[in-house]
């Protein structure tokens, strides 16, 4: 890609530095989702469909408000509804807008084997470039949040782009624009953290002692953050990971194993070459050949007798 309004910070399966002269002076961006303000109207889901020209299959009612039931290549964000009975015996309806968290240390990008199929822009957005995607599904194993979905039709991975196309021209993501309660806001990560801090003070004053910001350090922080009333237990919100991190198995596979294995295989071939040039081939001499034939003939004659 040429230098443009969204410059690239990291490319999948690329071992050299991408062009990095330009940096966003105001820092990275973030979307802040205030779960405590969400009314579950799904305007964000609809805006996402509309902006990205996505239409999922109309599903069936499974007895929950979640519709569609799961994210797919056509549904990059889904509202997750959880019914939680708190220690006081009251019901809390916890609604979380699920989708890509845009990790600062993206597991999908780390796992991806195809150069440039996954990029991280200097503003923090993690984007899939489907034209380079080979459909292996490694991003699915790499993601700590179970976000990427592989299309059965075209065998390419899809997920929320954080509307990188809109952000590139100075607009907020479509979901942000559509939210009627202001539960979703967008700006620089610094600003979003400040806004979250104010919200958390407010929530604490209203009795939510454990209110807090979800910006998990295990993945270097995220560019989609949540304000949670129960930040001490994120898993209440439809299994949001309490301490997300790239799995150590992915870490070994895509970290140490890569250079070590390639170097060892190359070394094996080189050792062979040097063995040949130092010790030389193992050949049968003419004398050994003659001895063998004589022995065989002697044995043949012994049989005939």
């Amino acid at each position, binding site marked *: 890609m040429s230098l443009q309004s969204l410059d690239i910070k990291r490319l999948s399966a690329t071992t050299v530095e991408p062009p990095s002269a330009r940096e966003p002076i105001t820092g990275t961006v973030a979307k802040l989702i205030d779960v405590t303000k969400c009314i579950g109207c799904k305007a964000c889901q609809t805006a996402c469909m509309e902006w990205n020209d996505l239409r999922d299959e109309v599903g069936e009612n499974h007895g929950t408000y979640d519709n569609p039931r799961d994210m797919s290549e056509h549904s990059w964000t889904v509202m997750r509804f959880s019914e939680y009975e708190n220690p006081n015996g009251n019901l809390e309806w916890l609604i979380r807008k699920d989708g890509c968290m845009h990790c600062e240390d993206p597991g999908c990008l780390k796992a991806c*084997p195809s150069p440039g199929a996954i990029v991280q822009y200097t503003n923090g957005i993690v984007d899939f470039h489907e034209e380079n995607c080979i*459909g292996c599904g490694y991003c699915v194993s790499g993601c700590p949040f179970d976000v990427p979905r592989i299309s059965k039709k075209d065998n390419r991975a899809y997920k929320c782009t954080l509307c990188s196309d809109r952000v590139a021209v100075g607009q907020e993501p479509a979901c942000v624009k559509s939210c009627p309660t202001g539960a979703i806001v967008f700006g620089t990560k610094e600003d979003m953290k400040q806004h979250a801090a104010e919200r958390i003070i407010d929530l604490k004053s209203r009795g939510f002692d454990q209110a807090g910001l979800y910006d998990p350090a295990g993945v270097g922080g995220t560019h989609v953050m949540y304000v949670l009333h129960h930040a001490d237990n994120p898993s209440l919100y439809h299994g949001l990971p309490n301490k997300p991190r790239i799995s150590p198995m992915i870490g070994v596979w895509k970290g140490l194993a890569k250079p070590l294995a*390639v170097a060892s295989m190359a070394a*094996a071939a080189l050792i*062979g070459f040097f063995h040949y040039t130092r010790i030389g081939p193992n050949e049968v001499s003419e004398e050994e*050949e003659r001895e063998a034939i004589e*022995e065989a003939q002697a044995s043949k004659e012994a049989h005939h007798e």
Partner: protein
Amino acid sequence: MSNEKENLQIERYTPNDRSFHWATAISFILLAISGLAMFHPALFWLSNLLGGGQWTRILHPFIGLLMFGLFAILVFRFWHHNLMEPVDWQWLKQIDDVLNNREEKLPHIGRYNAGQKLLFFTLLGCMIGLLLSGLVIWRAYFSWIFPIGIIRFSALLHAFCAFILITSIIVHIYAAIWVKGSIGAMVRGKVSFGWARKHHRLWFDEIVKTPNEKQ
């Protein structure tokens, strides 16, 4: 003259042995190319040899099934020659003599040496590991059945088995180049009397003492 020389050879591999060996070898090369392309970015260009990234991803698992099937036939044909015997452990203890071409110091061995036998079992283990882990990470058909932890573990296991397999095959190929006459054995099926007597004395004794059409 050439006729006479041909008569002074021992058949080591039948045409069927050779065909199954080379079919396995060809599928291995294709798998190594496509697998390495998806393993290390520095080798991603190898995916061009199979028609690009998507084609590499599509073909790799099918060729994998083929290789497993072909290798299973090889196992069926050769396993009984590859059981370790006491003399093989002695041979292995003298690996220094083996590597320095001091073959006269080594104990007499049968149709296969300890290195070949251990390779056989290493390959067998790797093939089983690759098949099982490969099915789990076969995204298009099977991955949805398995929990994410199993998929992650399988990806790592697949890479590990493939690494052991490729390294073993590098050793296997080098050994064939190093011990002259070995490539001929697998290409034309025959070895000289001297080759058999020098490298596999007990097998040689067995052949020359049983008069049959093999000579």
